[in-house]
């Protein structure tokens, strides 16, 4: 018996296309969210003090915001419609739940953002200072609310709640909107993602400002120093918050997506008193032999760290890849069946559903009862081989470490900058008044600030790689695999649009980066 008749290449191309669009989209959105906060702070300073410096500073960062904003919008529309174009089965199977956050995002967030962004750009001489300030904050609020709803949708894919399968309509249907909208998984995801976006805004502002100081740009010196101060404060608060929310996210992943955690940790065989891997050798280009290897080679680990992270207890049990495949007992005593058993029960559920739809009377009731007994594992019925249930470990392992590593570095750098600002207050004064050309910052720190800009993007994208690669093979965790989610489109068609978008987005990204660099070089000159 050959399972699944969908062209596997079409599935891969659909995945690649969605990943491409999401990665590009996430290059622009975090800067939009992050800069919106910093612009809001600066314009509030202008509103409160009336000092023209703050108006000029706000408008400068607004110029950067504007260049970036359009690309976020352009890539975002493709993402939304790709759910329909490339994931047709998915759109029906869970559209009853998944569509609602997207619609609410449009009604509540996008209109807020798109209405007030025009006032923010063009309204300086047309509306009052108060209305303009409100518009700047509302633009940022719109972007943030938009993030809320799309992350609610994404969190639901990671941990589906508030819904049940309806055998008559052949789809999942929502029964609790609040379970979906306020799922703890969604709350953590939102907090972690938005704070990570603020980090990007802060790193960008600090990096650009550092360049002005290194270049001894007198006209932009005050802009740079004030921006670095605000950027460092925003950066430190948000990177600490990202660490806290990240820890909470990992705890929830351990509970609802143990395979993702095992892949992030390259934990092949779990147990109690598990240590947290700081570093190990996991070949980036090859799925490790998790069945036969005891653990990843050259492993440096923090004793009991993983048990604390995953269970909040020193000796807690954490399952590894093999434990999850073979079945294990959770901390609370519940038994998690083996992958084979889940796959078998999944096929029973699918067969019962088929019988249910084709039968009448008493037999229908029997099939319904059988379906209900096994519905929890219906998604596993689409899985061909248990090895499919293991995500690609190298990507999860390394992406997680890159994200955490850079996140830690950001905390240290921002804290050091704030310390220098506090310690060397006079260095920020005008040069003819005792100030230093680089302000309170040593030259190496300014260079590091510039280098950190791409690092922040790499860290942020790595976070998404962990989130999405770790969920594989599922589109919706344990409910619907990627292979059963696609549209009836040939691989050639999807490959064509993949390369179309790749070319288009790359060309536009190159243009955007070049414009951005020119605008930075131009500085405050009109």
């Amino acid at each position, binding site marked *: *018996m*050959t399972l699944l008749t*969908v062209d596997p290449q079409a599935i891969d191309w659909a995945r690649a296309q969605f990943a491409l669009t999401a990665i590009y989209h996430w290059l622009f959105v975090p800067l939009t969210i992050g800069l919106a906060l910093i612009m809001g702070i600066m314009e509030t300073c202008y509103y409160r003090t009336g000092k023209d410096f703050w108006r000029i500073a706000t*408008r400068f960062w607004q110029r950067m915001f*504007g*260049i970036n*904003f*359009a690309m976020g*919008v*352009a890539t*975002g*529309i493709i993402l*939304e419609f790709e759910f329909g*174009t490339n994931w*047709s*089965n998915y*759109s*029906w199977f869970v*559209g*009853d*739940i*998944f*569509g*609602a956050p*997207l*619609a*609410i995002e*449009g*009604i*509540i967030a*996008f209109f*807020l*953002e798109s*209405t*007030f962004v*025009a*006032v923010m*750009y*063009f*309204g300086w*001489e047309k*509306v009052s200072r108060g209305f303009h300030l409100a518009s700047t904050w509302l633009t940022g609020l719109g972007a943030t609310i938009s993030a809320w709803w799309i992350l609610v949708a994404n969190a639901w894919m990671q941990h589906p709640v508030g819904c049940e399968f309806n055998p008559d*309509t*052949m789809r999942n249907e*929502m029964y609790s909107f609040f379970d979906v909208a306020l799922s703890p998984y969604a709350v953590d995801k939102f907090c972690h993602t938005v704070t990570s976006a603020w980090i990007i805004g802060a790193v960008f502002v600090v990096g650009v400002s550092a360049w002005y100081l290194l270049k001894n740009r007198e006209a932009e010196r005050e802009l740079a120093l004030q921006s670095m101060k605000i950027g460092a404060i925003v950066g430190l608060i948000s990177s600490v918050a990202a660490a806290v929310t990240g820890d909470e996210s990992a705890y929830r992943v351990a509970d609802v997506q143990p395979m993702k955690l095992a892949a992030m940790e390259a934990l092949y065989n779990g147990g109690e008193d598990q240590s947290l891997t700081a570093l190990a050798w996991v070949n980036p280009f090859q799925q490790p032999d998790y069945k036969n290897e005891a653990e990843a080679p050259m492993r440096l680990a923090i004793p009991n760290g993983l048990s604390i992270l995953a269970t909040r207890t020193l000796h807690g049990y954490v399952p590894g890849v093999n434990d999850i495949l073979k079945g294990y007992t959770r901390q609370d005593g519940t038994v998690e069946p083996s992958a084979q058993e889940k796959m078998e029960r999944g096929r029973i559920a699918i067969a019962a559903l*088929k019988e249910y*739809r084709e039968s009448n009377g008493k037999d229908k009731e029997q099939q319904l009862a059988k379906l209900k007994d096994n519905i929890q594992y219906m998604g596993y019925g689409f899985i061909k081989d248990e090895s499919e249930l293991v995500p690609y470990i190298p990507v999860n392992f390394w992406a997680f470490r890159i994200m955490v590593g850079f996140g830690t570095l950001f905390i240290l750098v921002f804290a050091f900058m704030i310390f220098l600002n506090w310690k060397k207050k006079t260095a920020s004064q005008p040069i003819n008044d005792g100030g230093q050309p680089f302000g309170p910052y040593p030259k190496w720190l300014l260079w590091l600030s510039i280098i950190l800009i791409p690092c922040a993007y790499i860290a942020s994208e790595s976070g998404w790689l962990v989130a999405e690669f770790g969920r594989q093979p599922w589109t919706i965790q344990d409910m619907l695999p990627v292979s*059963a989610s*696609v549209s*009836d*489109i*040939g691989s050639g*068609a999807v490959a064509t649009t993949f390369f179309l978008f790749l070319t*288009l987005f790359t060309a*536009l990204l190159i*243009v*955007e980066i*070049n414009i951005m660099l*020119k605008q930075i070089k131009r500085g405050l000159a*009109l």
Partner: protein
Amino acid sequence: MTYLFLQQYWWLLVSLLGALLVFMMFVQGGNSLIFTLGATDDERKMLINSTGRKWELTFTTLVTFGGAAFAAFPLFYSTSFGGAYWLWMLILVTFVVQAVSYEFQNKQGNLLGARPFQFCLQLNGILGPLLIGGAVATFFEGSNFLVQKANLLSLTDDAGGGLIISSWANASHGLDALLCPWVLILGFALVFLTRILGILFFINNIEDENIRTRGAERLIGQTIPFLILFVAYICHVLLKDGYSYDPATGVIVVEPMKYLHNLIDMWPLAVILVIGVFLVLYGIIRTIRSNTYIGGIWPTGIGTVVTVLVLLLLAGWNNTAFYPSTADLQSSLTIINASSSEFTLRTMFYVSLLIPLVLAYIAYAWRSMDRKKITQQEIKESHHTY
């Protein structure tokens, strides 16, 4: 609130979003006329900056239309977008290139120069309305798709199923729609309508005698083909067969002159349609006849919204299949078989109560920004222009 009420309510809202989108496509229509109405660089810059302050709203309306369709009628979303793949991809690509064209075209460091981006604005200005008009026409003309929910349970090759619920019955994936003359007629009607709206918006939004005079002159050239195409399509729709369903059994049958029957059965819609068409014509004619009248965008815009709304309601209300399948009658989508569950529609109903608030702040911001019209002086002195 019954389930049926919620289904009809959500068809009304999706239709309203579609109608608002057609109105907001004055941005596209205006962009397609940049080189016709703008004789100098300064004039063209005013035109681009005029639509450039509204494009985000058009974009958002399109996205929200998609989101609302997904939330309220997921089977339509999965069938149409997944099936008419090329048609929707073409629409999306033209909107993507439009989104960046404003900001990028005149910025230092733009490696490609201004021309490609101006071309993209014009491309979107023509193809956007044409293809969206074509997509709307498929609500009446039908599309070549099959819906078989049991396919999801076909795990094996020998079962003969393809696992995928909605499939297109030919290899063109939506491009076949463009071979239907009636699809093209509605598509081009929309192109001319958006150009009319674009001209009226420029006349209202830009304080420049040359542009206003040129715009009023060009109105006639857009209005005549629009009227011919629009009237032809309306006559065609009212006389053609439509798909109706039995609300008790869900069985779909072909009904001659279904849309005419809908108009008669729902006679208030007929009255509203007449008012809509009158308003469209009133705004155009008064603008052509008067040198001082600059408010034509409002009656014509409101008339457009009302007219399109009525057309879309005719497609979905009164037991009509709003997305007919030409491949399999029973695969056709109705607001009953394609909708979300009662719970979701009810939840979304409460969210939709925020829409008046959204419309109110849009109107307030619009009025605040457009109180002072765009002038050459403003464009020259402004720090942020496209």
